[in-house]
């Protein structure tokens, strides 16, 4: 019997309709565990870098987290590993909700989609019965309609569904794959790939068991972690910009200008309190971080940052409107962060005279034009008029528009960047070095906010049961905070650790809200590894766990190095080095400090000065096959690396 894993992979070739079930490969899971780890290795093995995102040979590999669907609190996530149409790199997108636990109950750890269907289809995975079904009647339907129709058709209201909306069908480069309230694969344009493959939806229902090798220890630790979540639960409940003291300190907005928090939208805390009807959770999560907000058309579901993006990017002032725009993106199935960014970008170009009414078919792209925002969300999703150009993302759109539009783009590795406070060296390090180009994958409250807390608070924190960083960083946290980022030694060590810890979370399927994003994370890194051990019976310790996480992260980097990624790409937009924030809370980023920060970070990762993993690093991590590839491709120019 297999423990922890479901025990099989399911592969569906949409070109031929072939359905194949394979037993889990013990060697693969021993080296890469699961989730993003195993999915990344499978992608490396099967898809050479010459395969473009829209090739039928590009695979969508859904990897359910190794602990997903078990009693480990917060373990509900799936990683989708594929080549992104937006960045043209190997990427990953993660999702919570209930889909992956269902996939595992149906008996599968990975779902691999290859080929392209000639007509729209959807998949129905019901334990061992797998069908490719006609979806012509679903094509053109929005997310909610699609899900309702499928549930009726399959006569089962317990099924879990992934689907794309019009944005995915029309191959919008930032299209999402939607699942349930506040759970979707939003970033990296993965929805466009489902649209390209004519795959409208994936419905799953399962009734099988997930077995645990060491039940007593597994249960005890899971229970302890669920109990330990009390402090974080309260913290997340009450989290608001006011309570965190971010007003007037944090600067938001990428486009047109940078704005301090107090000018944005109103009172966050009272808005939440007045409009929130319920807090909801993903599978087996006690943190209930998603808010069900009563809105005119029923309920909207928001969490954290994305619904804020329209306020920051399009200079809107109304929280209610921001939620309306966000929900509309969910309906059409695309990433609200990229959507807001694209519309704001067009507004910026309009103000600068680069786009005129001739280009916009008479539409008025004034900042803050609410009607226009709603119109453009529809036009981008349907690729109508100027929406067709913006649908390719700011990087491509700028090249199509020309006339100097390029200098006003804000992206990292061609991906629209989050609206987060922009002038911290720390945040720019996070957003620059990630292969997905999304700082939200690396940022954490300790290096971002806790370094700034009073000494007593920091002292209490390093002694608390929530401290998860290496011992040696305890004293470093007590050092004075330098907002310019000159204290990069501490910062880079924390980012490097967070990178590995979060990679482990993508492997186990535990949400980073439990493992590293907030200050009171119930999970320490060692807890994740212990649960892997108890669940599977693998003889793995903390050291080996860390090495596995590094192996997975470095493998992703190795893949993208073959696509030409290097130091030149690990950089924030040039503008952050040139302009201070307005009002001048922060000076422009210091080039020397930033360069030294990158140097220090590369050193910790075992990369050379150009950001290429060194031969020694690859060998140490058991990635000799990556070294050979890079050697063959002439990536290493000198003997030194």
């Amino acid at each position, binding site marked *: 019997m297999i423990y922890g894993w479901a025990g099989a992979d399911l592969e569906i070739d949409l070109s031929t309709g072939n359905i194949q079930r394979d037993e889990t490969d013990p060697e693969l899971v021993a080296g890469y565990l699961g989730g993003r780890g195993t999915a990344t290795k499978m992608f490396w093995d099967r898809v050479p870098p010459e395969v473009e995102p829209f090739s039928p040979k590009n695979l969508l590999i859904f990897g359910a987290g190794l602990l997903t669907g078990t009693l480990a609190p917060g373990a509900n996530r799936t990683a989708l590993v594929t080549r992104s149409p937006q960045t043209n790199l190997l990427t990953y997108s993660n999702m919570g909700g209930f889909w992956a636990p269902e996939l595992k109950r149906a008996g599968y750890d990975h779902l691999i989609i290859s080929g392209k269907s000639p007509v729209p289809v959807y998949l129905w995975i019901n334990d061992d019965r797998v069908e490719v079904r006609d979806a012509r009647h679903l094509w053109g339907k929005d997310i909610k309609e699609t899900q309702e129709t499928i549930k009726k058709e399959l006569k089962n209201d317990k099924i879990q569904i992934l689907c794309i909306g019009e944005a995915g069908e029309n191959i919008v480069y930032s299209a999402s794959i939607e699942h349930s*309230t506040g759970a979707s694969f939003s970033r990296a344009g993965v929805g466009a790939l489902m649209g390209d493959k004519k795959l409208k939806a994936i419905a799953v229902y399962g009734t099988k068991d997930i077995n645990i090798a060491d039940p*007593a220890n597994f249960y005890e630790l899971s229970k302890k972690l669920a109990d330990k979540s009390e402090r974080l639960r309260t913290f997340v409940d009450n989290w608001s910009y006011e309570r965190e003291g971010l007003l007037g300190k944090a600067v938001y907005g990428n486009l047109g200008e940078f704005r301090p928090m107090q000018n944005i939208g109103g009172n966050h805390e009272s808005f939440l309190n007045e409009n929130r009807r319920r807090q909801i959770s993903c599978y*087996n999560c*006690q943190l209930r971080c998603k808010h*069900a907000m009563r809105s005119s058309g029923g*309920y909207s*579901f928001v969490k954290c940052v994305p619904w804020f993006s329209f306020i920051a990017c399009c200079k809107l002032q109304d929280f209610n409107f921001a939620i309306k725009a966000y929900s509309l993106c969910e309906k059409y199935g695309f990433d609200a962060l990229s959507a807001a960014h694209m519309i704001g970008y067009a507004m910026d170009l309009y103000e600068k005279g680069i786009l005129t009414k001739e280009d916009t078919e008479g539409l008025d792209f004034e900042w803050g034009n609410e009607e226009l925002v709603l119109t453009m969300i529809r036009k981008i999703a349907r690729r109508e008029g100027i929406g067709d150009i913006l649908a390719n993302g700011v990087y491509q759109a700028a090249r199509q528009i020309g006339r100097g539009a390029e200098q006003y783009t804000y992206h990292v590795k061609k991906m629209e960047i989050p609206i987060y406070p922009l002038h911290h060296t720390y945040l720019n390090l996070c957003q620059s070095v990630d292969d997905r180009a999304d700082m939200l994958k690396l940022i954490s409250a300790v290096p971002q906010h806790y370094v700034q807390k009073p000494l007593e608070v920091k002292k209490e924190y390093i002694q608390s049961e929530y401290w998860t960083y290496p011992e040696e960083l305890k004293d470093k946290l007590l050092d004075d905070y330098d907002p310019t980022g000159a204290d990069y030694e501490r910062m880079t060590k924390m980012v490097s650790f967070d990178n590995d810890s979060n990679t482990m979370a993508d492997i186990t399927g535990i949400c980073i809200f439990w493992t590293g994003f907030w200050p009171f994370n119930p999970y320490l890194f060692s807890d994740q590894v212990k649960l892997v051990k108890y669940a599977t019976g693998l003889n793995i310790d903390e050291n080996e766990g860390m090495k596995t996480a590094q192996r997975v992260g470095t493998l992703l980097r190795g893949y993208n190095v073959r696509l030409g990624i290097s130091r030149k790409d690990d950089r924030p937009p040039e503008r952050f080095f040139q302009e201070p924030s307005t009002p001048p809370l922060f000076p422009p980023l210091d080039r020397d400090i930033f360069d030294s920060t990158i140097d220090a970070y590369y050193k910790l990762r075992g990369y050379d000065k150009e950001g290429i993993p060194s031969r020694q690093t690859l060998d140490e991590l058991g990635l000799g096959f990556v070294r050979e590839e890079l050697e063959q491709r002439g990536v290493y120019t000198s003997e030194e690396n």
Partner: protein
Amino acid sequence: MKKIKRIEIDVNKCTGCRACEAVCSAYHYSPKFSLINSARSRIRIISDEENDLYVPVLAGPYTEAECDGRRSYSINGEKYDECLFCPASCPSRDLFREPDSGIPLKCDLCGDPPPPEGPLCVYWCKDDALIYVEREEEGEEKNKEDEKEKALEYLIEKYGLAEIRESLNRKSKV
């Protein structure tokens, strides 16, 4: 005095996380916690997110007969079939049955005695949508002997002593 044990459900507090389903299936397996499978759970969360509806339903008694299922509930303007909220394990559906053997499942409040922390669905529900209540109440514990006697008396009155005796004889030979 008799002891009342019950789980009280507050549908407004449920976050829809289904931790209760997971822990229920794990606890009721032997060895304990050695598997997780919502399909084996004696509690299920019925949810309709778009209508803000989250209803934990605990498995009730097994019934051989299907009911007519002709009633419906209207909640926040949305209509739901009564079957959706029914706790019975019945022939018309596979809810509250072991998925492999078909054996009906019923909530037993985690056995007698329950674990020290009480029924586990309640313990894992950190939002208090499920509350375990145990209290003494006036009145006598139901006497099973009395019930049997009463049932027999009823049958004898209805069919006559001779017929019941014959029936019992027949049964005891099988």
